[in-house]
């Protein structure tokens, strides 16, 4: 028995019309392109009605000068079925614009999204609205650039040095 993604898409689209923009099958992996404004509703529906209880990963991609909109937030959700062939991994992608990038948080659905969204914010500067504590998680709190953006010079250590010197003066990290 294989999982019926088409009936899943139908159910999601009837609950949130137009939410699933596209389905991509590649080497046995299924990716759904989701309308960014409905991401929180779709994720809640997938968890409540289809048993996708586990958010395995949440990350982002910067497509600067490759395509518009610039960013893509990627979710890997997992469902632990009662049978071994009902273990389903599903990838969701939501396109986010380059100016003032913003998307709804999914922390109220999977609390494990908390640090993952903080990491995406830290590295890409994508704001997750509704996140309970959206601070930088890896870089120092007073660090200004978003280092995984493609227009950031990866060898530029100036901002790191400023944070380091401030930490030396004031103590703490």
């Amino acid at each position, binding site marked *: 028995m294989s999982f019926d993604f088409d009936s899943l898409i139908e159910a999601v689209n009837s609950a949130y019309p137009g939410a699933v923009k596209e389905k991509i099958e590649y080497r046995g992996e299924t990716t759904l392109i989701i309308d960014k404004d409905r991401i929180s509703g779709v994720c809640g529906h997938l968890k409540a009605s289809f048993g996708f209880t586990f958010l395995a990963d949440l990350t982002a991609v910067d497509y600067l000068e490759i395509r518009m909109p610039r960013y893509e937030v990627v979710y890997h959700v997992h469902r632990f079925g009662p049978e071994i062939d009902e273990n389903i991994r599903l990838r969701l992608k939501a396109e986010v614009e380059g100016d003032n990038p913003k998307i709804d948080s999914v922390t109220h659905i999977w609390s494990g999204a908390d640090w993952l969204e903080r990491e995406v914010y830290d590295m890409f500067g994508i704001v997750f609205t509704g996140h309970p504590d959206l601070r930088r998680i890896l*870089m120092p709190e007073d660090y200004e650039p978003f*280092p995984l953006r493609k227009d*950031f*010079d990866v*060898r530029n250590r100036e*901002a*790191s040095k400023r944070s380091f010197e401030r930490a030396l003066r004031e*103590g703490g990290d």
Partner: protein
Amino acid sequence: MGVNSNSLLGGDGFITTTIEAFANWGRKNSLWPMPFGTACCAIEMIGVFASRFDLSRFGAEVARFSPRQADLMIVSGTITYKMASVCRMIYDQMPEPKWVIAMGSCTCGGGPFDSYAVVQGIDEFLPVDVYIGGCPPRPEAVIDAVMKIQKKIDLEGAPIL
């Protein structure tokens, strides 16, 4: 130093020396390292302390995780700018006289990590006495560095008071 076994001046003999030579002799043979291990080099440093390489043969086996009881900082592993302020704070807490070994390519010059987050050599913020290259260096290289520190203490010394 001179040894005298004249029975009139003491039964088992006595040694003449200067206070400075005596203090430095004690210092170089009882280095207490502060192991600042942040990455894979730390594993090799632990190997230096353990029985096969046994740094206690050089009097430096008492790894103190309190900087206040240490006089030799072995920085082993990649140091990011976020960690650098912590590293400097630990160094500042160590009492004088103190020495620093930069262990491995990362601490010497950033290693392969030419990136926004990694310090390109800990001598940006610490006075390093001995550099050890390698990724990671062999334990013998670390022992060699400790012996170089001992030689440095012997030759240069440090203020007694």
